[in-house]
């Protein structure tokens, strides 16, 4: 029981780290047509995430892999139920991935424009769809006693789901604008800062709406009411949200970005804790929900996997933080002139 609870938490953690890391990639990719006025601008934007996006994306692979390893029934039901939505996410991510490499290798502006569009689609679509997917999980999916999903993609595009999509998109747009502010200079930098400032009040409103809507559409608050100390998680999330505003005002963009990361992590945990112990609640009947206790792997597998992640994830964090540290500098002309740069 403890082992399963630990894994429930780790599962949430992996998704949170994925959103903190690849979130700003998706944000910058979405902002590409809006802030990338010149070819130089576009290159700076793309190269600002250039060294990091691939390593960031692996958190998604790991989150999926861990879902499979620790909660195989959840993996099976989640990915077959959300088939169309997940395939859309995967295909758009594929487009994004190759666009990084291909766009700088083609010469004609038309070809470049094509890959830039692919990069945009491959950023905005997953951002929204992840929000839609998670909101629907918070809400509960129409799963019957045999774990069969009674619905399709349209089922997921309900108002609460769409609200989740908009929320995630805003998270990532602000997060991306802040990273871009860190790594860019001059006019592009100023526009990135302006974007963050303009979007922040929108994010505030949507976040508040979503928090209130969740009280109506989901059972997320039940555990918070039963264990009020957990409200600290929501508090931390709100602190992150306001931290962005405060640090933007002080032009401390690293601190603003960290606040944004806190916001995203907090929001993820707000949802994950609210779900506990369910991973896939059933909106048809609570008995049909898949939980950490009825859908996990055997104790032996959970134990071995725990040892593996406790050994390797800290190592991953060390070298990823090292990489982030190498590439937190402003994107320079020298960086852009590298043969292999995007």
């Amino acid at each position, binding site marked *: 029981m403890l082992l399963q609870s630990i894994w429930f938490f780790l599962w949430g953690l992996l998704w949170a780290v994925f959103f903190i890391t690849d979130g700003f990639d998706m944000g910058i990719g979405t902002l590409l047509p809006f802030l990338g006025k010149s070819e130089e601008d576009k290159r700076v934007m793309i190269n600002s995430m250039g060294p990091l996006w691939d390593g960031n994306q692996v958190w998604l*692979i790991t989150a999926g892999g861990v879902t499979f390893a620790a909660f195989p029934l959840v*993996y099976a039901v989640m990915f077959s139920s959300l088939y169309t939505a*997940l395939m859309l996410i995967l295909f758009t991510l*594929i487009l994004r991935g190759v666009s990084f490499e291909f766009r700088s290798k083609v010469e004609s502006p038309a070809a470049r424009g094509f890959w830039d569009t692919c990069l945009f689609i491959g950023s905005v679509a997953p951002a929204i769809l992840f929000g839609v997917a998670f909101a629907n999980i918070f809400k509960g999916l129409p799963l019957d006693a045999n774990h069969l999903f009674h619905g399709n993609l349209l089922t997921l595009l309900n108002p609460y789901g769409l609200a989740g999509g908009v929320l995630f998109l805003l998270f990532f747009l602000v997060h991306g604008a802040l990273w871009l502010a860190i790594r860019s200079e001059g006019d592009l930098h100023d526009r990135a800062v302006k974007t963050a400032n303009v979007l922040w009040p929108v994010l505030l409103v949507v976040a508040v709406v979503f928090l209130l809507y969740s009280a109506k559409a989901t059972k997320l608050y039940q555990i918070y009411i039963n264990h009020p100390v957990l409200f600290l998680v929501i508090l931390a999330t709100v602190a992150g949200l306001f931290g962005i505003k405060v640090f933007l005002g002080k032009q401390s963009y690293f601190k603003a970005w960290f606040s944004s990361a806190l916001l995203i992590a907090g929001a993820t945990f707000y949802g994950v804790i609210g779900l506990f112990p369910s991973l896939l609640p059933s909106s048809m009947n609570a008995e049909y929900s898949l939980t950490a206790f009825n859908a996990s792997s055997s104790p*032996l597998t959970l134990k071995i996997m725990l040892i593996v992640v406790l050994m390797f994830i800290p190592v991953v964090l060390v070298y990823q933080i090292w*990489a982030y540290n190498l590439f937190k500098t402003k994107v320079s002309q020298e960086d852009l002139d590298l043969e292999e740069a995007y």
Partner: protein
Amino acid sequence: MDPVFLSRLQFAAATMFHFLFVPLTLGLSVLVAYMEVRYARTGDETYLRMTKFWGKLFLLNFAVGVVTGITLEFQFGTNWSVYSAYVGDIFGSLLAIEASVAFFLESTLIGVWIFGWKKLSRMAHAVVMCLVAAASNLSALWILIANGWMQEPVGYVYRNGRAELNDFAAVVFNKFAILEFFHTVPASFLLSAFFVMGISAYHLLKKQHVEFFSRSFKIGLVVGLVSSIWVVVEGDQHAVHVTQVQPAKLAAMEALWDTQSRAPIALLALPDEKNERNAVEIGTIPGVLSFLGYHDVNAEVKGLKDFPRQDRPPVLLTFISFRIMVALGMLFPLLTIIGMFLKNRLVESPWYLKLMVAAIPLPYIATQAGWVLAEVGRQPWIVYGLMRTTDASSPLAGYQVMATLAAFIVVYGFLGAVGYYLIGRNAIKGPESVQTA
């Protein structure tokens, strides 16, 4: 349309396509790392240009390899949910370990390699590529342990309506997995070697950058020679093990219908599955199959008729893919041995150079044939002897899978075409296409 059949096609299309790019990632990363270490140690500018030129091709290939791999991680859940729930206790862990241990290292460090030229010392930067090479080969290990478990399930117990892990060490050190690893990785190095040799040969034919491409060719040659011989020798060991644990696959890949000692091989055959015989058999040599399978000419080899019809794999596809793989597998050492004799007069041997240019696609065909053999030959099982493929798929509607199958074919087809076009164009342009300032 039958969603199970469509899901099979989709998985096959996705994996085969992914495997167009994987072997070159595994092998070329090692070759580029070697070139860069030579540069870091000697300061020889030619090695730097080689690193950058082959590195550029590597990156283009790597990009398509990475994105086509993402879908596979999730495709077990999307299209094979019953399988996932049934074996996830074992299989899921292996995938999660692959991501934690290898993918992270590979993907994080490739970003550092691309952008870190000015931020790291020469040797540190070279070490980064060494680690990328190590990480990608490490990921191959874990996925092959996973596939090995599907071929020969070990270390599990049937409990709670599913397979549950019993012995992690047994799973990790599964003989089938080890044999697969030591077959697939050298095969990948072989493919990479022929890629380098073929492109080098193209430029040597035009007498362009002769020093650069002679050096590149020779590096490819040594790797090609060793790996092509290794693949054949180890392949024999692999076949002996398959004979033990997957006798139906062995019977199918040789189109052997009747159990017999001194079992023959037929060089070519046209199986007639309905009538349980071969309509055509050419070049039958008695005793050879017994020898190949057991290293004993008198050993008894089980024929397909010894297995119930529903337990036999598709014979024609298994037989042909095996023949293609072996035929090419015999050709590769021959080509590299010739190369060893000609290596100091390559430019004066245009017939050989032309051969090597034409040979570039051959390892691609061989590796695909090998995987068709491995996976089609395992049918009707998704886990050999434990679970049938037809019982393993997700409860999806035919139209859903039809749509995604079409999307895979179209999107992958397009990306593959663009990817290979860019690789080809840059390969032809040669080292002038890279600046090293």
